[in-house]
C-alpha cells in the first residue's frame, strides 16, 4: 500500500474517494450490520428502529422474508421457515441427518452433491443459499441507509469455524453479490471494538458466551496491532444450556411427568423468561399453564447453584487458552465480555473472580462484534489510510493429511499465525506406485476417523519408482481468512497437482470442541493405538514383500524346506496381525527378517549375476 501517493504528470490526482463498507455479524440467532459514519460506528436499524435481525428466513412462493416477518410465520409454516441455518453451514449429509432429528425441516439428499438441502416451496435450498438471503437483507438495509452501493463487507465467523464452514460463509457472501474483504473472527472483532475506543496496549482475553457456543481468545494489543495468541472454546456451552438446566429444575420441582412437545416448549420458554428476570431481580416467579396452573418462585441463588458447574467449565477452557498462549492469568490486562449470556450476573462475577479483574462490558454484548467488523471494513476499504491497525489471526484447528493405517500426520498445528505455508514430504509405499490419494483433515486427534474430513484429492502420473524413492511434497497454504489450499508435487520428476480444497463437510463448533477435548482425554490411548497401527502396517508390508519375492524366484533360489520355514513365520505373523500387540508384532516382524536374511542375500547375488551376464542393468529387478 502506497503511503505516499505521487501522481505522475497527466494522471488525475483526485482525492481519495470514500468507499462504502459495512461489517456484518452473521449470527445463529440474530444478525446485525454496522458501518462507520463520520468517524463513528453505528449499527444500522430497520424501519422500525430495530438493529437486530432475527436470522430466520421464510420462503414465500415468490420471495424470501427475512427477520421478524419470518419469525412470525415460524409456528404456522415451520417447513418453509428456516432458523439457525448457521448450524448447517459447511456440513455434510450425515451431519444434517443427525440434526434432522432436532430440526423440523425436510432434508433432501441430492445425488452427486455433498451439500444437503432443505425442501421449501421455493425449491431445495442449501445452507449457503439461505444464509445469502440474510446477507442480502442486511446489505439492502445498509444500501438504503448509506445511500449507495457497497464496495465491500467484512463478515464475522466464530473463531472455531473450520475450513468448510468458512468456505460456506464466503460462498454465501458471493451468492449475495457482496465483495468480501475479509472473514473476521468474532472475538477479534470484539477486541477491535474495545481496543480502538480505549487505546489499550497489553494482553486481553475475549470471553464470548452466546446461546449455544462458547469462545475464548487471548490477544496481544500493541500500537494498533491485534495479535491473536490462542483461541479455544467449548461449544456445548451456552445460554441454551442454562435454560435446559432450569427446565429440568422446573420438571423436578413441579413433578411433571409425561412431558409432550407442547409442555416441553412451555417449560423451556418459562425457564428462559425466569433466567432473564434473574439477571435484574433476586427472585423470579415461574408460571406454567398445563392442565392446571403451576406457579413457583425461584431465587437467584438457586439458579446460580444450577448453572455454576457450567460457568466453571467455561473457565476451564479459559485456562487452556491461557496455557496455549503461554501467558499467566495475572498477565491479562483486560477481559472483554461478548454474547448475550454474559449478562447473567454469575457469569460476570465468576469471570471477574477468575481473572481477578472487573470484566469490560461497556459495549452492548449483542452489538460489539458487528461494531468491530465495521471498523475493520472501513480500514480495509482504504478510508483510513493513516490507520496502523492490523489484525493478525491464528489457525483454530490443526491441519493434517491421512497416512498409512488411518493416522493423521499434522502439517500445521493450531494457534499458528496465518497466513501460513507449510510443506511436508512423503514417499511411496509400494514399488511402481504411480498415483497417490491425499486426504486432508482438520482436528487434533491422531486417528483420521476422529478428525474432520475436509477433502480428498488424487495425485497422478508419477514415474514408477521403487517404494520409498518418490519424494512427494505436499504444500498447505492457509490465507488470512483461514481458508486453505493444497498443492502437491513429486520432486524428482516435477509432476505437480494443484487443488483448491472444496468443502465436503463442515464441522459443528460442538464437534470441534468435543474433538479437542477428546484429544486431550485420549492423548495416551491415541499414542498406543498409533504404535499398534504402525506395526500392523509394517507387518502387511513385510508379508506382501515376502509373497512377491517367493512368487518371483522362491523356487529358483530356495529349497523346499527353506520355503516352508519362511512361509511358517510369514503365516504366524499373518494369523495375529489383527490381534497381537504392537510389541508382539514387532517381535514377529524381526523374526521373519532374521529368518529370511539368507534369502535376501541370495536374491542380491542372483540379480548381480544376471546383470553381469550381459543384461542391461535397468532390466534387473531390484
Amino acid at each position, binding site marked *: *500500500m502506497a503511503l505516499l501517493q505521487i501522481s505522475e504528470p497527466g494522471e488525475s490526482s483526485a482525492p481519495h474517494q470514500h468507499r462504502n463498507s459495512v461489517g456484518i455479524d452473521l449470527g445463529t440467532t440474530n444478525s446485525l450490520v454496522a458501518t462507520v459514519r463520520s468517524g463513528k460506528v453505528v449499527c444500522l436499524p430497520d424501519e422500525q428502529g430495530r438493529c437486530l435481525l432475527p436470522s430466520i428466513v421464510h420462503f414465500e412462493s415468490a420471495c424470501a422474508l427475512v427477520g421478524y416477518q419470518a419469525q412470525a410465520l415460524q409456528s404456522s409454516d415451520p417447513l418453509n421457515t428456516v432458523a439457525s441455518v448457521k448450524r448447517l453451514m459447511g456440513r455434510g449429509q450425515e451431519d444434517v441427518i443427525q440434526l434432522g432429528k432436532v430440526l423440523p425441516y425436510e432434508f433432501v439428499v441430492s445425488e452427486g452433491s455433498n451439500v444437503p438441502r432443505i425442501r421449501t416451496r421455493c425449491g431445495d435450498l442449501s445452507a449457503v443459499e439461505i444464509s445469502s438471503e440474510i446477507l442480502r437483507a442486511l446489505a439492502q438495509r445498509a444500501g438504503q441507509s448509506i445511500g449507495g452501493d457497497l464496495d*465491500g463487507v467484512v463478515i464475522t465467523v466464530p473463531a472455531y469455524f473450520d475450513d468448510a464452514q468458512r468456505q460456506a460463509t464466503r460462498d454465501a457472501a458471493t451468492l449475495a453479490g457482496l465483495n468480501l*474483504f*475479509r472473514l473476521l473472527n468474532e472475538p477479534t472483532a470484539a477486541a477491535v471494538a474495545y481496543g480502538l475506543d480505549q487505546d489499550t496496549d497489553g494482553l486481553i482475553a475475549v470471553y464470548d458466551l452466546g446461546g449455544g457456543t462458547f469462545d475464548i481468545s487471548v490477544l496481544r494489543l*500493541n*500500537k494498533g*496491532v491485534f*495479535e491473536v495468541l490462542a483461541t479455544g472454546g467449548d461449544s456445548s456451552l451456552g445460554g441454551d444450556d442454562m435454560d435446559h438446566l432450569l427446565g429440568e429444575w422446573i420438571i423436578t420441582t413441579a413433578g411433571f411427568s409425561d412431558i409432550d412437545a407442547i409442555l416441553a416448549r412451555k417449560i423451556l420458554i418459562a425457564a428462559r423468561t425466569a433466567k432473564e428476570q434473574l439477571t435484574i431481580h433476586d427472585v423470579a416467579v415461574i408460571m406454567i399453564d398445563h392442565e392446571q396452573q403451576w406457579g413457583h418462585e425461584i431465587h437467584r441463588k438457586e439458579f446460580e447453584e444450577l448453572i455454576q458447574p457450567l460457568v466453571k467449565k467455561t*473457565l476451564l477452557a479459559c*485456562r*487452556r487458552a491461557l*496455557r496455549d498462549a503461554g501467558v499467566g492469568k495475572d498477565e491479562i490486562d483486560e477481559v472483554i465480555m461478548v454474547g448475550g449470556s454474559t449478562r447473567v450476573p454469575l457469569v460476570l462475577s465468576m469471570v471477574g473472580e*477468575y481473572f481477578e479483574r472487573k470484566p469490560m462490558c461497556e459495549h452492548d454484548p449483542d452489538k460489539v462484534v458487528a461494531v468491530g467488523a465495521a471498523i475493520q471494513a472501513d*480500514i*480495509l*476499504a*482504504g478510508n483510513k489510510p493513516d490507520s*496502523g491497525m*492490523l*489484525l*493478525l489471526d491464528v489457525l483454530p484447528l490443526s491441519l493434517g493429511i491421512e497416512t498409512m493405517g488411518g493416522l493423521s500426520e499434522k502439517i500445521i498445528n493450531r494457534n*499458528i*499465525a*496465518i*497466513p*501460513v*505455508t*507449510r510443506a511436508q514430504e512423503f514417499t511411496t509405499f509400494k514399488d511402481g506406485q504411480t498415483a497417490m490419494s491425499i486426504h486432508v483433515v482438520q482436528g487434533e486427534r491422531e486417528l483420521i476417523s476422529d478428525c474432520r474430513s475436509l477433502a480428498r484429492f488424487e495425485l497422478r502420473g508419477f514415474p514408477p519408482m521403487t517404494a520409498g524413492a518418490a519424494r512427494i511434497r505436499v504444500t498447505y*497454504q492457509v*490465507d*488470512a481468512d483461514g481458508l486453505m489450499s493444497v498443492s502437491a508435487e513429486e520432486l524428482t520428476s516435477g509432476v505437480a497437482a494443484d487443488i483448491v480444497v472444496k468443502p465436503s463437510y463442515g464441522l459443528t463448533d460442538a464437534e470441534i470442541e468435543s474433538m479437542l477435548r477428546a484429544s*486431550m482425554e485420549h*492423548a495416551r490411548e491415541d499414542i498406543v493405538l498409533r504404535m499398534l497401527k504402525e506395526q500392523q502396517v509394517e507387518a502387511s508390508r513385510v508379508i506382501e514383500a515376502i509373497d512377491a519375492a517367493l512368487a518371483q524366484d522362491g523356487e529358483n533360489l530356495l529349497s523346499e524346506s527353506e520355503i516352508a520355514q519362511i512361509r511358517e513365520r510369514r503365516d504366524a505373523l499373518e494369523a495375529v496381525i489383527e490381534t497381537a500387540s504392537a510389541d508382539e508384532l514387532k517381535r514377529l516382524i524381526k523374526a521373519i527378517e532374521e529368518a529370511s536374511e539368507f534369502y535376501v542375500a541370495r536374491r542380491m547375488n542372483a540379480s548381480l549375476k544376471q546383470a553381469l551376464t550381459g543384461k542391461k542393468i535397468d532390466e534387473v529387478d531390484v
Partner: protein
Amino acid sequence: MQAPDFSQTYFELFGLSPVFDIDRARLQAEQQRLQATYHPDRYVNADDRDKRVSVQIASWVNQAYEILQDPVKRSRYLLEINGATIPDDSSTTSDTEFLMEQIELREEVEACRHGEDPLRKCEQIEIRLVQRADQLAAEFVTHFEARDLDAALLSSRKMQFIQRIQQQLSELQFDLEDF
C-alpha cells in the same frame, strides 16, 4: 510491491545477529513491522498478483517468526544455516547417559499423577526442567561458538527432549489442577 530478499536468513530478515541469544523485543517489534508491510489486509484493493504475493511473503515472515521465537527450532535453524545436517526427529541418540535421563524424567512425570501432592511435585519438576533447559541452551551456545556443530546439535536435541517433557508436564498439570 517491494518484496523482501528471500535468500536472506530469518535472522537477517528480522535484523538480528545470527546467534542463539536474540533480542526478543526486537523480534516481536520486527514481526509486527513486517506484517504491517506485507499482510494481505494491506492489499485488499490491490491486483490479484500483488494479493498472491502478499500471502506468500506474509506466510514466509510468519514461518521465520515461528522458528526464531522457539529456542529449539532456533537452535536447529542456526545449525542448519551454518552447514550442519539435521537428522529427522525419529533418529535416536546413542548417548546412554542422556537416554537414562530421558527415561527417568518421563517416569518421574508419570509418577506425579498418582503420588502425594501431585501439583507441588509437578512444580518442583517444572523448576528443574527450566534450569535444565537453560543449562542445555548455555551448553549449545558454548559448542556453537567453538564451532563444534556436532556437539551443538546434540545439545539442541537434548533441548528438544526437555521441551517435550515440559509439554507433557504442562498437560499433566492441566489435568490435575482444580479450582
